């Protein structure tokens, strides 16, 4: 029977559960799971919503053999105004565990491009992953988004950072460094050096931080003031931000907090911070994330300082973030965040790449963060 891609409806939910069981049973990977609900929990479609998620399933008679999600959103492109685009995320194919369905991955990606030629994907875990290779084959341009990290608990970092402890000799060396304090000294020195290299006399200070302030007119003003400083960004006006981070978001979907940063009584920026879910590659560490941020360029450092201090007070062991814009990258470096290897990839379809020309040649002026794409709610 031919595989047909359809919008995910309630009648498909039990077949999706069976699909998830087959993927997880054969792969043993708990991440291979598609939404069991046809209605997205985060960003459900709604009348006049500027941003929403929609799901599609590859139906093969009574079975589902694949699925993907599109996050429909609006972008600002400097000099070209607003455009509706979509993020292709969570593609899952039965071909992962059964080669008989090797065609499903191609069907999903092509269907997404038919739905929205202005398409992008974000994250993907690196250039070598299948999804990145498929998108490259389809003509997408791939750009890594810089990764920044700051170690707050060096001893725990050295003991728990599983991704670095791949060889026995390396694990032993890291244990030794943790026990003797040599690792603490080395990590603190590296972070201090990163901070000193990029420190400027105006590195932000004298700010007030408020927690949990609803996005309203003040956020619209910040969006308007700062959008011309970036060449490309998904819209971050108050209406969109209230949908991205609804009041029940922290309690029901992901453990994030929104910070408003002010100076002399006026809002100068905002940041979304949170603690990442447990991940084997981070061991038992509490990992904080600066998920999203917005401000005029002169206030970027103050926003990153405020977000870093808030996560320090929360007692996290490590803070991570992905940022593309050179001003925000500089703000992270001023705050003592070294740059690490990135597996967070921005992939733009041919049509989107054309729209972004000639800006695509300078992705350091894009504003892309961990909150873009499918970055939320679980993968920030």
């Amino acid at each position, binding site marked *: 029977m031919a595989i047909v891609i359809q919008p995910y409806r309630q009648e498909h939910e039990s077949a999706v559960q069976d699909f998830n069981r087959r993927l997880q049973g054969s792969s043993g990977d708990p991440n291979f799971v598609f939404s069991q609900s046809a209605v997205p929990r985060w960003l459900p479609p709604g009348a006049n919503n500027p941003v929403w998620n929609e799901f599609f399933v590859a139906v093969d008679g009574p079975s589902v053999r694949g699925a993907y999600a599109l996050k429909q959103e609006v972008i600002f492109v400097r000099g070209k105004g607003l455009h509706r685009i979509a993020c292709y995320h969570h593609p899952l194919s039965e071909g992962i565990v059964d080669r008989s369905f*090797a065609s499903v991955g191609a069907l999903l990606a092509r269907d997404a491009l038919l739905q929205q030629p202005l398409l992008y994907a974000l994250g993907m875990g690196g250039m070598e992953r299948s999804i990145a290779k498929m998108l490259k084959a389809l003509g997408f341009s791939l750009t890594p988004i810089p990764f920044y990290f700051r170690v707050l608990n060096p001893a725990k970092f050295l003991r728990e950072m599983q991704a670095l402890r791949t060889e026995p000799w390396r694990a032993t060396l890291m244990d030794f460094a943790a026990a003797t304090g040599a690792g603490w000294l080395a990590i603190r020195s590296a972070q201090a050096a990163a901070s000193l290299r990029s420190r400027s006399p105006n590195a932000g200070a004298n700010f007030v931080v408020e927690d949990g302030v609803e996005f309203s007119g003040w956020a619209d003003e910040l969006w308007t003031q700062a959008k011309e400083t970036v060449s490309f960004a998904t819209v971050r006006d108050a209406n969109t931000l209230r949908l991205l981070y609804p009041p029940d978001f922290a309690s029901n979907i992901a453990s994030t907090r929104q910070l408003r940063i002010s100076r002399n009584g006026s809002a100068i920026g905002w940041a979304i911070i949170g603690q990442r879910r447990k991940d084997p590659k981070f061991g038992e560490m509490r990992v904080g994330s600066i998920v999203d941020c917005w401000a005029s360029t002169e206030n970027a450092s103050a926003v990153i300082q405020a977000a870093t201090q808030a996560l320090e007070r929360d007692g996290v062991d490590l803070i991570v973030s992905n940022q593309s814009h050179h001003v925000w990258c500089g703000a992270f470096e001023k705050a003592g965040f070294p740059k690490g290897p990135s597996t967070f990839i921005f992939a733009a379809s041919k049509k989107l790449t054309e729209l972004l020309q000639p800006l695509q040649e300078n992705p350091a002026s894009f504003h892309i963060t961990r909150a873009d794409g499918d970055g939320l709610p679980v993968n920030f």
Partner: protein
Amino acid sequence: MAAGTFDEVRAIASDILGVPATRLSGSSSPDTVENWDSVQHLNLVLALEEKFGLQLSPEEIDQMKTLGSTAQLIETKLQSSPR
């Protein structure tokens, strides 16, 4: 099916899958060829489209279960819209 079409499809598959053409037959499929995963399947689709100057629909991509069925599909499409 004309042998010529099958040979052309097999040559393309051999190139993409990194398998000698002599080891590919009409019954070769993702189940029997180790390198034939979802990425290579997409590469095969794109290469066939470019080589034969045609566009494969989702339904047609889904019909590409074996090399033989793929060659048959290409031949049918070529006959319905000659180059």
